[in-house]
C-alpha cells in the first residue's frame, strides 16, 4: 500500500515564549515491509532542524526555532510503500538487545490489577498470549479520548477499562513483559479500514518479540495484528520514549495544541481516478 500522511501539530502559546526547543520523532525509518518514498518535516517558524538518532534506533530531530515564538506549526508530509506481512517485522535496525525490552517503565509498571490480568492472559506460549491479550483488551476496554491524558499509566487505564490507543498499548506492554515477552511501544499512522481519512491524532500500538517469528506488531485498540495499513514511525519502552514531540520553552503561559492527521491509501485514489 502506498500510504500518504499529512500531519500537522500546531502549538499556540498565550504569550511569546523564548528558548523553545523540541525533540521530534516524526520521521519513519525503513524496514523490509516499509519503504520511505518521500518525507518532509516543515515548520512555519524559522529555525534549525538537527538530525540525530536515539538509543532505540529512531530517527530524531532537534528543532530550535529562532527568537520568540507564540505559534509554532509543524507539518509532516510523506509517502511510504508498505507490504503486507501479517504484523511480522523484518529488516529493522535493532541497536538494543532483546532483553532490554523486558523492562517495565514508569507508565507500564504493574500494579495488582495488571498482575492479575497477566495471570489471566498467560497461555503458556508467547504468540498465543499476545493474541489473547490483544483480543481481550479490544473486547473489554472502551475507546474514550476524554478519560486519560498523555501521562496516564497502564494501571490507571486498566482500572477504568478505558482510554486511547496509547493506553491500550501500555496495558499490552505491561502484561507482555510480566509474561517474559520483550515488548515495545510503537507510534505511527494507520490507514483506517472504515475510510475515515482525517484523524484527531496519530496512532500507537505494540510490538512483541515472538520466538521463531521475531518482532510482531499487535494493535489492541483494533484487536488485530498490524497490516500493510500501518506505518511505523518510532519505538520505545513507552509513550515517552517514542512521543512524536517533546518540547520545552521559557515563558509563554498556557499552551493549546491542535493536531490534524490525514492518512490515506494514495494508490487507491490513483486507481480510482484511472478507472
Amino acid at each position, binding site marked *: 500500500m502506498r500510504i500518504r500522511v499529512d500531519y500537522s501539530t500546531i502549538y499556540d502559546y498565550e504569550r511569546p515564549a523564548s528558548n523553545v526547543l523540541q*525533540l521530534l520523532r516524526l520521521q519513519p525509518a525503513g524496514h523490509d515491509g516499509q519503504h520511505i518514498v518521500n518525507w518532509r518535516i516543515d515548520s512555519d517558524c524559522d529555525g534549525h532542524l538537527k538530525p540525530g538518532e536515539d*538509543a*532505540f534506533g529512531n530517527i530524531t530531530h532537534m528543532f530550535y526555532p529562532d527568537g520568540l515564538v507564540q505559534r509554532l506549526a509543524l507539518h509532516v508530509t510523506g509517502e511510504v510503500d508498505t507490504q503486507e506481512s501479517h504484523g511480522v517485522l523484518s529488516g529493522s535496525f535493532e541497536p538494543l538487545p532483546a*532483553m532490554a525490552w523486558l523492562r517495565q517503565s514508569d507508565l507500564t509498571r504493574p500494579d495488582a490489577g495488571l498482575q492479575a490480568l497477566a495471570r489471566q492472559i498467560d497461555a503458556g506460549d508467547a504468540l498465543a498470549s499476545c493474541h489473547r491479550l490483544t483480543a481481550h483488551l479490544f473486547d473489554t476496554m472502551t475507546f474514550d479520548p476524554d478519560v486519560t491524558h498523555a501521562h496516564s499509566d497502564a494501571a490507571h487505564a486498566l482500572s477504568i477499562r478505558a482510554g486511547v490507543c496509547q493506553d491500550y498499548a501500555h496495558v499490552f506492554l505491561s502484561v507482555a513483559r510480566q509474561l517474559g515477552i520483550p515488548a515495545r511501544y510503537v507510534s505511527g499512522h494507520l490507514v483506517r479500514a472504515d475510510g475515515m481519512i482525517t484523524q484527531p491524532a496519530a496512532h500507537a500500538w505494540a510490538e512483541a518479540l515472538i520466538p521463531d517469528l521475531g518482532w510482531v506488531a499487535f494493535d489492541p485498540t483494533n484487536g488485530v495484528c498490524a497490516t500493510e495499513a500501518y506505518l511505523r514511525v518510532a519505538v520505545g519502552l513507552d509513550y515517552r520514549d517514542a512521543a512524536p514531540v517533546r518540547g520545552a520553552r521559557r515563558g509563554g503561559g498556557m499552551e493549546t495544541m491542535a493536531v490534524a492527521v490525514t492518512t490515506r491509501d494514495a494508490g487507491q485514489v490513483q486507481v480510482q481516478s484511472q478507472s
Partner: protein
Amino acid sequence: MTATTAFDEMFGLSAGYDARSADGVTAAYRAIRQWLADSPAELMAARRAQAELFFRRIGITFAVYGDAQATERLIPFDIVPRIMSRAEWTGLEHGLKQRVAALNAFLADIYGSQEILKAGIIPPELVLMNPAFCLHMVGRKPPGGVWVHIAGIDLVRTGPDQFYVLEDNARTPSGVSYMLENREVMLKLVPELFDQVKVAPVETYPEKLLETLASVSPRTRRGAHPTCVLLTPGQYNSAFYEHSFLADKLGIELVEGNDLFVRDDIVFMRTTEGPQRVDVIYRRLDDDFIDPLVFNPTSMLGVPGLMAAYAAGNVTLANAVGTGIADDKAIYSYMPEIIRFYTGEDAILSNVPTWRCREPDALMYVLDHLPELVVKEVDGSGGYGMLVGPHAPKATIAAFAAKLKANPEKFIAQPTLALSTCPTATDAGIAPRHVDLRPFVLTGADGVRIVPGGLTRVAMTEGSLVVNSSQGGGTKDTWVVDDA
C-alpha cells in the same frame, strides 16, 4: 571476618583502651598517642568547642532527610585525626587505580559491545534489566572515553593489612568538601602537630579536579580554555553546601538548570555579557532530572536539550550519564570478576563477601542468618533502608524478612564486619569508634589523580557500625604520614 573484637588503628588488637598508654601503639600513631597523652581533658574539650565554632562560622551543614528537628545541621567533627602510614596508603592507591580503571572499562563495555555479558561473566539481566542501566547511553561514547571522572570508593579495615571495598560510588559521590574543610580546621586548631608530623597535602584536590574536567573537554583547540560549570539541583539539595564550596574552590560558575540553555545542540550559560558556551558540566544532578525531553518530563531542575548536545559530542558531563549502574550492589558483588576481565589481574582490594538474594540458595541462607548479617538494597545509599542484623530488634528483623521475600532481587547481604576503630574524642574522654574511609579517585583523559587520604567517617555512637552522615555519623581529618 565476623570477629567481635575490632582492630584498633592505634593499638592493634591489644586489650584495654587507655589512650595515654604507650603499649602496642602502631608506628604511625606514635605522635598522636603522645599528643593525646599530653592533652588534659579540659584542653581537648576546649579544642572540640573551638572546632565546632570554626565549622559554625564556615556554615558547613548537611541536610538530613527524615530528621524532623532540623533540615540542616552540623556534621559532628572529631578532632583526633585518623592516621595512615605512607606504605599503607600506597597499597590502597594501587588498588583504587586498578578498581576505577576496571569500572571505566566496564561502563564502556556494557554501553558498547557488551563483551562481559557475551562472555557470561555477569548475568545479562542484571545489567540490561537494571533500572540504573541507562538505555539512552547504549552505543554512546563520552568525550575522552571517560565515564567515571569522580569516584568515591568506600573502604573499611578489619585488621593490620585487611582492607575491603564496601561500596563503589560512581554516580555523584559527595563528601569531598568535608575532607578539605576538616584539613583547614585542623591546621588552625593544632598547627604544632603539623610541625611534628609530615602530613601529605589534600589541598590540591580542587586543582586536580579542574585539570581532570579540562582534560575531557570536547573542544581541544590549542590555547582554548574550556568553560566548566558545576550544575546543582539547588539550595534544597542535601549537598548544596558542597556544591557551592567546590564551585568556589575550583573558580567555576555554580549554575542551576535555569542558568543554562541549549541551542543548535550546544550548551550555553546565561551571563550578564550574553550567552557563553559551556564545555564541561560537573553535574551534581541525577540522570533522571538532567533533561526533561529525554528523562523525567516533570523535572524543572535540568536543561532541556542537554542530552542532544551530549549525544552530538558538544558537551561533557561528569560523571557520564548511566554510571549509576556501577553503584548497584549486585554489580558490586561481581567486581573481582570485572577487574580480572578487564585488567587481567586479580583485584588488589578485596570485596566484602556478598550474598545476592536474587539467587534462591543465597536467599535461603540470608533468611536463616538475618541476625548476623547486614542487608542492603541493591540501589540504596546513605545507609537508608538497610538492616544491621546484630543491632536490630526481633520485630525489625521479621519485618525485613517479609520485605526480602517479596522482592529478593532488590537486596544483597554481607557479614557484619568488625570495622576498625580509631581513637575519638567523646564526652567521656578518648574512646575507640568505628570508621570507614572514602578516597576520591579522579580520572581524566590524561590519567588518574588521587590526593592521599580521603574522607574518614566515624560512627559517633559507641558500638555503632553505621558511619553515614545521613545517619548521624561524624567525620575526621585523614592523615597520610610519611614514615619518620
